């Protein structure tokens, strides 16, 4: 197979080499992984979700039709969706969503910075780990709403009170994601990194943290869930004058016994939650796909 092109000095060696290269190439092309075909993926991912939403609406309508509660207490999907459409045209509704989302994103961003830093520091230091490692896990299991009385006394009914509780809720999850991720970095990769000349911070930056990224992302995702819950709980308890928010509207709708409006707000909150989760899921899928970790 191999074509001998040498000028006679080391003919045997050269033809041997090209023969070896030809065989390697053959094996490589046999081994190269094929890319899976795309297309239809979007629809395949979407239809079960749409079907589930449809079934949920149907079940809801069924309960309404059964006459279990009068319709002014439990309206059906029709009036609620109509109400949602009407609210969607009012600027107050969007202002409230804007304020709630801003609080959520700012709180989450600060939590992410604090949580990632805390996670790295605790993961690196044995002393800190034994000192506050279990406390972080403990904080994570404590319902953040239990912090509100204290937050209100410390910060009054203010943005800071809400922010404080968001941080308390989200930081432990995010820090724990980092710690778990660092713990599960394969020792072989760390050895390989050190062997290639990575020490101290460089080892963290180029090997440990990238290797821990999937766990860090799931910590962030969980952190967002805690932040979002704390935020809504906070908005129900901490109403600030001239600051309309989803939580404030929810409280108002209860006071006005306007369940149609209330459920419309709840659907809004649910949809926001699903949308943010979808972002995290997409990031997570991207990370896994790049590393060849099978998704589901």
């Amino acid at each position, binding site marked *: 197979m191999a074509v001998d092109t040498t000028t006679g000095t080391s003919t045997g*060696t050269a033809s*041997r*080499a090209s023969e*070896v*290269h030809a*065989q*390697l*190439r053959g*094996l*490589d092309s046999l*081994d*190269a*992984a094929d890319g899976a075909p795309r297309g239809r993926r979007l629809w395949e991912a979407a239809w079960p979700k749409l079907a589930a939403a449809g079934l949920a609406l149907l079940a809801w309508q069924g309960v309404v039709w059964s006459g279990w509660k009068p319709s002014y207490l439990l309206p059906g999907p029709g009036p609620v969706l109509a109400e949602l459409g009407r609210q969607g045209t009012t600027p107050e509704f969007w202002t409230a969503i804007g304020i709630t989302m801003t609080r959520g994103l700012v709180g989450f961003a600060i939590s992410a910075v604090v949580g990632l830093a805390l996670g790295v520091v605790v993961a690196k230091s044995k002393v800190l780990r034994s000192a506050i490692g279990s406390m972080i896990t403990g904080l994570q299991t404590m319902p953040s709403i239990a912090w509100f009385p204290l937050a209100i006394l410390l910060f009054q009914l203010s943005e800071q009170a809400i922010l404080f509780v968001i941080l308390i809720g989200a930081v432990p999850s995010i820090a724990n994601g980092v710690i778990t991720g660092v713990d599960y970095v394969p020792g*072989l*990769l760390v*050895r*390989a*990194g*050190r*062997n*290639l*000349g*990575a020490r101290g911070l*460089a080892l963290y930056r*180029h*090997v440990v943290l*990238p*290797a821990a*990224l999937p766990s860090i992302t799931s910590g962030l995702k969980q952190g967002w869930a805690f932040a979002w819950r704390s935020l809504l709980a906070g908005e129900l308890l901490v109403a600030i004058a001239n600051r309309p928010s989803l939580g404030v509207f929810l409280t108002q709708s209860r006071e006005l016994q306007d369940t149609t409006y209330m459920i419309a707000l709840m659907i809004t909150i649910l949809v926001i939650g699903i949308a943010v989760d979808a972002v995290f899921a997409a990031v997570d899928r991207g*990370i896994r796909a*790049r*590393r*060849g970790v099978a998704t589901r």
Partner: protein
Amino acid sequence: MTALTLQAPAPEQTVAPAVRLEGVTKRFGAVLALDGIDLDVQPGEFVCLVGASGCGKSTLLNLVSRLDKPSTGTVEVAGRATLMFQEAALFPWLSALDNVAMPMRLAGVERSTRESAALDLLDAVQLREFASKRPHELSGGMRQRVALARTLGTAAPVLLMDEPFGALDAMTRDLLHDELESIWATRGLTVIFVTHNVREAVRLGDRVVLLSSRPGRVVEEWRVDAPRPRRIEDPAVSALSGRILTALRAEVARHGR
């Protein structure tokens, strides 16, 4: 044990050895892993270490690569020594190119320089067209070649290999023997290659060193005089392999008593 001492004649060189171990002992708690190892490896020499499980081969490589320190004795290495493992240990979040470029990145080489150098290294292991692939898209043999290219990227004159082809199929392994031999020759590397496979050791090495188990000691060593390039099925390779295997078996049997 059969009488087959074919001690490597001490080459009459004045050059300083690339790697010198003198009276090296390594203890892990109560376990003595290495006991009084004396070993000189000349620059450009290809030395294979063989031995049964527990002979401290990997410990020895860790000492030479400075991932670990000897309990007593000295380890001297002229320049840097880098280690290659049985598993490729590639970074799964990086492409083949970025994996190969990593040691240069850590050394502070600027991007365009290190990327073209990494491409050249991938070329040396016949994987240039796979530069953008990630490790999971490559076969085991290809990953091991990327790992070899990455190790070469450290520009260390001494290459330590810990059963690098142990997990590969026979055909791929044969091809990688050829590939490694030519890279070793063209780059003038010093290689210490650890393996369970005696034939592989004879196929590749200038010298084969047999270590005993628990504790690891140098039992015997053989110079391989068969001309290169060799093939694993060459009669000369088979003959010497047979003799070394007999010695290895005797060494293993000693533990059964």
